[in-house]
């Protein structure tokens, strides 16, 4: 029956096309051009917003900017507290240089860690994140445990990050200091702390419009103690020392991190 409805419509169009009426032809051509360009734009812009960034996040003074500098240029640079983000293209170093791995790179973005700037910058860049490198200062970790856990909790319960599930690399930096904790210890302590946090943060949060007192996501599985393996995203713990074991001119010990990044991309 619909065919019958459309039939006269199609007939009229055919007739007009055959009549070679310039006005109608012009209109049709214009429409086609517009549709094609819209599709083209969508593809181009869509490609831009594919997640191709790796974010360097962490508390203040954890060493993100130095890791950033070491990864990109291998040099040691003095750093101060960052006020804005820095970004650059990072080309993955890998042992096997095949035609596939060469030229594969992503944008490395270093976000400021200061508490008052953190939320804004994470908000801005979280949708573009393919992986998140969470830098932890291993030397003062014990004192800062609750702050680290809270930041990690807010990252893990953010709705968009849960949806995209970027790979999480928890980098335990400053291993050159003797008092630094190892990655295993840090993992255990974080799991315990996050276990407590999800009780205090997410117990019966009522749905309030416009509020984000914490995500509405419940970390891990109910009833069981929290473990990083319960998360939807891949989580890895690596150790590194951006400063290097020798003096400032020495090499930084970031091989594990580089290998991790190579695996992600």
């Amino acid at each position, binding site marked *: 029956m619909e065919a019958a409805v459309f039939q006269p419509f199609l007939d009229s169009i055919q007739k007009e096309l055959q009549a070679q009426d310039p006005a109608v032809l012009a209109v049709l051509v214009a429409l086609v051009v517009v549709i094609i360009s819209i599709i083209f734009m969508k593809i181009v812009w869509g490609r831009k917003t594919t997640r191709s960034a790796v974010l360097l996040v962490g508390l203040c*003074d954890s060493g993100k*900017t130095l890791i*950033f*500098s070491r990864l*990109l*240029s291998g*040099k040691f*640079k*003095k*750093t*101060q*507290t*960052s*006020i*804005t*983000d*820095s*970004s*650059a*293209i990072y080309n993955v170093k890998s042992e096997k240089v095949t035609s596939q791995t060469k030229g594969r790179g992503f944008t490395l973005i*270093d976000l*400021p860690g*200061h*508490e*008052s*700037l*953190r*939320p*804004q910058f994470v908000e801005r860049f979280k949708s573009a994140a393919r992986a998140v490198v969470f830098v932890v200062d291993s030397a003062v970790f014990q004192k800062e445990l*609750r*702050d680290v856990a*809270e930041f990690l909790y807010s990252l893990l319960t953010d709705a968009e990050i849960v949806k995209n599930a970027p790979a999480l690399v928890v980098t335990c930096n400053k291993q050159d200091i003797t008092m630094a904790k190892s990655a295993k210890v840090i993992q255990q302590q974080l799991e315990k702390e996050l276990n*407590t*946090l999800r009780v*205090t*943060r*997410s*117990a*019966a*949060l*009522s749905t*309030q*419009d*416009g*509020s*984000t*007192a*914490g995500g509405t996501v419940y970390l891990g599985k109910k009833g069981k103690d929290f473990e990083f393996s319960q998360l939807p995203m891949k989580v890895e713990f690596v150790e590194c020392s951006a400063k290097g074991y020798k003096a400032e001119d020495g090499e930084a010990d970031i091989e594990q991190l580089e290998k991790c990044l190579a695996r992600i991309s």
Partner: protein
Amino acid sequence: MLDFFTIFSKGGLVLWCFQGVNGSFTGPVNALIRSVILQERSGSNLFIHDALSMKYKLDNEFELVFVVGFQKILTLTYVDKFLDDVQLRFRDRYKNQLEQKGAMKLLNGSFQFQDDFQQLLREAEESTKACAPAPMKTFMQSQKSQKTVKSMIETRGGEKGKEKESNKKSKNAKKEASAAEGDGDSTRGGTQSGLPKKSSPKPQENGNEGLTPEEIKRNQQEFFRRMGGGAKKPSSSSSSKSPKPEKLQRVKGNREWVMGGTNTKELDYSNKDMNGSQDTLPATKDNAEDLKQLGQMKGDLRSVDYESSEEEEEDEEVVVSAAAAANPSKSSSKSFRGVFGMLKGLVGSKSLSQEDMEPVLDKLRDHLIAKNVAADIASKLCESVAKKLEGKVMGTFTTVTSTVKQALQDSLVQILQPKRRVDILRDVMEARAQRRPFVVTFCGVNGVGKSTNLAKISFWLIENGFSVLIAACDTFRAGAVEQLRTHQRRLNSMHPPEENGGRPRVQLYEKGYGKDAAGIAMEAIAYARSHSFDVVLVDTAGRMQDNAPLMVALAKLIAVNMPDLVLFVGEALVGNEAVDQLVKFNQALADHSMSDKPRIIDGIVLTKFDTIDDKVGAAISMTYITGQPIVFVGTGQTYSDLRSLNARAVVSALMKA
């Protein structure tokens, strides 16, 4: 002379540094960044940290920061100009490298700025030496030697006469001056006694405003009669003294109140069993509305919600075509050139200058003040935003208004974000694990809602399973203890002690009226520790910030008891007064504590939030002054009217037209 000079990018990479003395300067510069730039206090560019004073300059076009540090005791006059010179030289030299978007060039580039720096420094130091201090003038050169001796005799009219001789030639003035000279000697003797009739006239600089000398003399006689009447005052007051002793003869009888009893025993509403009593209210119909709120406060606090209308904000972003007459910087009279200028302003890169931002910032400042932000905070904020945007290159299709508004919005959100973790429940659990009570002290001026919000917070805590001890350290205000007892009864009736294994959730520790508050607090904390309470909420009396003895008493209470959290309770209705209150409270707490690490205000409770619709400026004023987060927001008088702050919602309400 200079201790150090650094140039670093806003992303944190140090591009070049000069160190005059040994020792790392990373700490002081980080302190500078955190306290000034991140807290939007960049209005003045001087920052003092320990023994070091630092001056800085922001380059917003290339996102650089220039910092120079020198000893606090030195006063170097060339530093400002030197900073500007260095900035210009650095920019010119490394423009290519700095213009790149992306940090690669910054990382790879080596900035050999040493020679230029030394040269500029030498020039700056020489320029100060060049202008030597001016030699003192000899006496002959001064103006004083030109005057006559007589003119310098100081009398009441004589002073004016001296001035008259130098300049004015008005006829009246000359006449008055000569009259004054004559009277001058007599008035000196006659000031003390009653009526100096022939007083010196008071000639104005520009004549006598049309009054004739007789009128002047008449006015002055009136004046001096009144003044002379002052001389008579002792006599009149002595006459008034006589009726007073008569009054004192009458014995003052006690005033009879109509509704009151004559027996003080009738006024004693306290129960026989005081502390640790099982005071619960039976569940009557009065508790019905309380019971409705049962269970609503579990978990973390909900944040304040706002219906933010997003439509107005979008208008700023979309730039209409040449008809955008709202563009203030391009409103020129010549219409054709004006249109062209507007187009040029919309497209292409244009760097912001102070004059461009001036009108926009003025309007924004007035808007903030209309929204109840304290006046000097609003102006400091606007200055800081101006500093942050100066020299910045705007992208295409952005107006000055939108850029400035966006920057102001970002800085407001930045101010409202807490600088430290705010999670009371977690800290209470930590204290419970350490087997000590978590002590919270509430302080503030009179009538802001300390006791009400204390009750709300204890409701929230017991909903989350903690036991609370309320310490009634308000020993001054009548009914304060009874008020807290009533709250305690109601709270306990909602969570009956049977749930808690026979022990009531909330208990009140009080010692009546008139006692020392600090002592009561200390005893309450000891009681809580021995009876393993989780939280102690200490309620103090309201006091004005100017009342020195009360502020000392508060400082003593806090210094002696070392609470875990000192909360300042402020109402959202307060305007410019908030600045004064917070500054003086912090000052008092810092001054009167004996230790070198004084406890100052750790957090703010913003009360009566439901009484303001969108004039939420008090939140900004309070967080700006103290740098401490707003921990709770009170939005009403029932137990569930407690929220946490949502920075974005508050800022959008603030920026809403």
